[in-house]
């Protein structure tokens, strides 16, 4: 009886604070500017003539660490919903985290490529755009990987020396961007072998719920995966995000993948993923030996 009462009080308390038991996640020192740490440069670009996604326009940003040396191929990491990851005052602050981790030698010299989803602008100012985010991120198949490999990477490679070693090429994203990152590596493991998923949508938006089943019966691919998820994540018409991520983690374990699954208490946002970004990156890039 006493236990019941305590539980009831706890539940009421959670309800009143609206936290549903979520922990407070805060950004650590690796996500803050530190004195004496060299600062990389972020430049903004626009892609307006995609052949893979005709009619789409989008912004992308390129982060180049101060330690970059054009004589040595740099590693790269591609982020979907890139503007969100590139913001220095956002939940992830990737340029700051990269500066700190590269400076400490916790990850190799790595270029960041931050890509926003495409939009087909309307032909009249009063009309609405055709938003391409779900089509690009939630669809299974190799179309988005082809877009990266045929359109984005060649554009960045014009100015920078990027590694062709798939173990030196990582990809990440949040929500539909998370499943998108997985899909790219799944389709093209010869091009990307490190995946970072934040509250990934391994649900049935456009069929992505099948991965957990496919992984178990497919010859394992050489992909390293970090999955972050939250107990209070979405449960909607497309699926249940915590269950879907648990299924993914269980399948990756079953099939013998090099994976790490971290279940937090947050909802569909980047608070937890942002707070643990430095340790996620250390885990993904651990033991990486640059070629040459």
């Amino acid at each position, binding site marked *: 009886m006493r236990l019941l009462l305590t539980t009831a009080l706890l539940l009421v308390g959670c309800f009143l604070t609206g936290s549903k038991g979520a922990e407070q996640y805060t950004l650590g020192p690796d996500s803050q500017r530190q004195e004496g740490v060299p600062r990389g440069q972020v430049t903004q670009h626009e892609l307006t003539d995609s052949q893979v996604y005709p009619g789409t326009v989008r912004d992308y940003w390129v982060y180049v660490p101060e330690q970059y040396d054009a004589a040595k191929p740099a590693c790269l990491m591609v982020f979907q*919903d890139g503007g969100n990851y590139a913001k220095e005052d956002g939940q992830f602050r990737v340029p700051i985290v990269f500066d700190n981790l590269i400076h400490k030698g916790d990850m190799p010299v790595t270029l960041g490529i931050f890509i926003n989803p495409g939009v087909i602008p309307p032909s009249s100012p009063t009309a609405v755009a*055709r938003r391409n985010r779900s089509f690009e991120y939630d669809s299974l198949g190799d179309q988005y990987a082809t877009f990266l490999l045929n359109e984005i990477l060649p554009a960045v490679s014009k100015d920078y020396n990027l590694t062709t070693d798939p173990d030196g090429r990582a990809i990440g994203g949040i929500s539909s961007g998370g499943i998108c990152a997985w899909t790219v590596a799944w389709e093209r493991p010869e091009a990307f072998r490190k995946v970072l998923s934040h509250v990934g949508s391994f649900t049935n938006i456009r069929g992505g719920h099948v991965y957990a089943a496919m992984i178990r019966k497919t010859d394992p691919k050489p992909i390293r995966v970090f999955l972050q998820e939250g107990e209070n994540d979405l449960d909607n*018409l497309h699926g249940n995000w915590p269950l879907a991520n648990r299924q993914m983690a269980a399948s990756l374990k079953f099939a013998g993948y090099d994976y790490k699954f971290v279940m937090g208490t947050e909802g569909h946002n980047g608070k937890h993923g942002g707070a643990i970004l430095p340790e996620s990156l250390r885990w993904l890039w651990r033991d990486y030996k640059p070629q040459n």
Partner: protein
Amino acid sequence: MLNRTVLFVLLLLPVMTQGQDMPLSDVLIEGEAWELVGEGFKFTEGPAVDAVGNVFFTDVPSDKIYKVGLDGAVTTFVDESHRTSGMIFGPNGKLYGCRRGLKQIVTYDERGNATVIAENVDGNDLVVNREGGVYFTEPSTQQIWYISPSTEKRVVDHGIEKLNGIILWPDQRTLVVADTAGENLWAFRIEDDGSLRYKQPYYTMRLTRGQEGSGADGLTVDTMGRLYVATHAGLQFFDTQGRISGVIANPNDKRISNVTFGGEKLDTLFITCGNRVFRRKTQATGIRFFDAE
């Protein structure tokens, strides 16, 4: 730089908000089921709503067009329809139709008298914008045609395998065309001169086991931008990002051929299914393209 940042934040807002989910529970009303409007027809098609909310449909093999009044009464509107198939109301109260028997696109006035606006074309389904521009599908040639408001016609796309239903987004600047044989609905951007660009398989439908294609046929949209399509699997609908959001069950054993919103408040789905027509009240509100300013 500031402007750029502001613009960027504004662009990102819709991407990051999760409020756009459009589940079945936003559309259906608990306790409201499909209700039979009429039966005993041969093959019903072309449901179209007028300015008042009356719904017209055609019984293709029997050459008749019927009207369903607001009171639900079914009366004959046209006695000799020459196998009129797809229909929709355009500006000035005219009912546009694909008259397959005479290979014409026509408009019917309120007394049911036809005026020919295009000849030597085998239209299946059509949509009319607020200016009176017409897009129609011609399955026999895999072509989409455009008839300008001054009735000049030209082909604006070719190649969808078994094209069929055709509809506009509420803003009338995106066109969507169904492929009965395929898995996807195709979206196009409409240019100022009526031409089409950026063809994309934007919507992927649910398939029925044992059926090769979707069976996608007629289409309609609502004020929220949801897009509905009649298929083998039922009446499927999609949100504004092209994500399948619900499959409303077919009430009988005949395939749903077409769909529109009708009724006084435009909140009632009407579907044509073989020998029958059904309706069902919803929480959604349909679009009449001629209503837009």
